[in-house]
């Protein structure tokens, strides 16, 4: 599958433009006019379709098979990336990648959840669902970043932490919990970006920081729409309704004050222009980092702590 249902009209129009282009090389000047016309029509169509995406459609965008993954951004944004492996206790979990790199020359630690592009890689990456050793590797790298005064940048893209027998045996809960504990007080700036799916505790486990940002068509949710639907509606078919109710889109979460920054995607989504998306993300990372680095460590940590303490809506009478 290369495009989603609601992308189909765009894909059809683009196929037509492509076809004309091939013919155009042989003859007729009118064709280039026709192409220009169709291209502007395609732009309008994209704008129209994407201005009225439902939360469920956004959820599908977040999981788009062509969507750039963590490594795509890491390669495009950073230089000198050296991947570091393993949790030093059990294994190397390839659902999480991490390592040292430079951002415009500055040393940083980057950590991301990585999905696979083809079947073989998907299996190797466990579909981006980390096991405890993945979270423990992430924690090791974060603590290393603290020691060597490197800011941490995380890229979140997971359906969730892996729900498997061996993951439970090795303490999936503890691994996630420990990261929340450590990240809340890590003495270096942390910027977290949801680039695709922000799947529940599995996402949060690398998602506690000074800034939490989301790409426009990414999602962040306490449970997947399908999971929520099968529990509360007793049917996974109600996922579109659940997506609506959960309010998992970037714009909704921004309104609720749960995230700090939305990074707009190119027309039609990040996958239509990954290079432009990466450059946009890079410039936001740089400007946010500059702001955070202007703070002294106590203020940085106190702000991070108060940000967490402020989460919650209730009445008190």
């Amino acid at each position, binding site marked *: 599958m290369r495009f989603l249902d609601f992308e189909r009209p765009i894909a059809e129009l683009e196929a037509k433009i492509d076809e004309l282009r091939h013919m155009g090389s042989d003859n007729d000047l009118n064709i280039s006019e026709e192409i220009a016309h169709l291209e502007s029509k395609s732009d309008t169509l994209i704008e129209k379709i994407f201005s009225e995406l439902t939360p469920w459609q956004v959820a599908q965008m977040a999981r788009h098979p062509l969507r750039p993954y963590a490594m795509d951004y890491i390669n495009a944004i950073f230089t000198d990336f050296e991947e570091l492996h393993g949790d030093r206790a059990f294994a190397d979990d390839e659902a999480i990648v991490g390592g040292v790199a430079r951002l415009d020359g500055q040393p940083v630690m980057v950590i991301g959840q990585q999905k696979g592009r083809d079947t073989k890689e998907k299996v190797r990456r466990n579909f981006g669902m980390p096991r405890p050793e993945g979270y423990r590797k992430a924690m090791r790298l974060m603590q290393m970043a603290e020691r060597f005064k490197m800011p941490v940048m995380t890229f979140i893209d997971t359906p969730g932490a892996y729900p*498997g027998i061996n993951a439970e045996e090795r303490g*999936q*809960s503890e691994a996630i*919990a420990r990261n929340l504990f450590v990240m809340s007080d890590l003495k270096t700036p942390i910027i977290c970006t949801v680039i695709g799916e922000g799947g529940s*505790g599995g996402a*949060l486990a690398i998602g506690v920081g000074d800034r939490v940002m989301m790409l426009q068509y990414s999602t962040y949710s306490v449970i997947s729409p399908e999971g*929520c639907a099968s529990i509360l509606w007793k049917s996974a078919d109600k996922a579109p309704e659940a997506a609506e109710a*959960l309010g998992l889109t970037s714009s909704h979460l921004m309104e609720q004050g749960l995230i700090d920054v939305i990074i707009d995607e190119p027309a039609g989504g990040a996958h239509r222009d990954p290079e432009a998306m990466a450059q946009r993300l890079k410039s936001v990372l740089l400007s946010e980092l500059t702001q955070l680095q202007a703070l002294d460590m106590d203020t940085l940590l106190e702000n991070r702590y108060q940000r967490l303490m402020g989460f919650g809506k209730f009445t008190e009478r």
Partner: protein
Amino acid sequence: MSWFEKLIPSRIRTDASSKKSIPEGLWIKCKSCSSVLYRAELERNMDVCPKCSHHFRIGARRRLDLFLDEGEREEVGAQLEPIDILKFKDSKKYKDRIVQAQKATEEKDALIAMQGQLKGMPVVAAAFEFKFMGGSMGSVVGERFVRAANLALEQERPFICFSASGGARMQEALFSLMQMAKTSAVLARLSKKGIPFVSVMTDPTMGGVSASFAMLGDINVAEPNALIGFAGPRVIEQTVRETLPEGFQRSEFLLEHGAIDMIVDRREMRDRLGSVLAIMTHQQLAG
């Protein structure tokens, strides 16, 4: 009606619904060993089956009542009430679910916290009310947990939490998820200041509660045979497509795999936690 019942003349047939000659609730059948138990005796035994030691689930207030010394106790964050910020509606409105749960449990939300004493030692203790929407963690649970922890921090008392929860509360969506980070962050402060946190996991402790503060105890304790884990057994079964091993995600399994320090019988909870906490805080227990 079975074929046999059909043979019985109608005048001596008894209607199944009129059979309740025993007043409801006087006798209780143990889920584990099927013994029929006299309720008063079961209660005297802290809701642990006298025959097989099966630990029945108990409510938050009863839990704290059994755990803390008699005498002065003060509730923390009692005035906090949940609100339906997202206007969440599935088959039922969240607003209605809150009202219903409040009526059924006479609690405002799923966590109750108190300051009191354990064997003469000042402590702060919190307990989950599982009957309140499956003990799910939303904003009020997170906030009460934080306030209780802060009180422990200010007064330098040990903090103990008894968990019984299905996880994060879906109806408060990402707010619920953020409670995981919020509760874990406050524990980092306790840890820094050397205030002990003891997490007692009771049946069941799952999902977002297990994957946050419940696993962050200086001492992690479980009641016998409690279901404790990140993902629910059904979800795991669907994912791995194999039957789960016997005793999977039970307290004994967690002890074996190094996730918890000890399994403590409810009837010994006060003595053993009292003793451990006294050691950790360099105190002598009175008497």
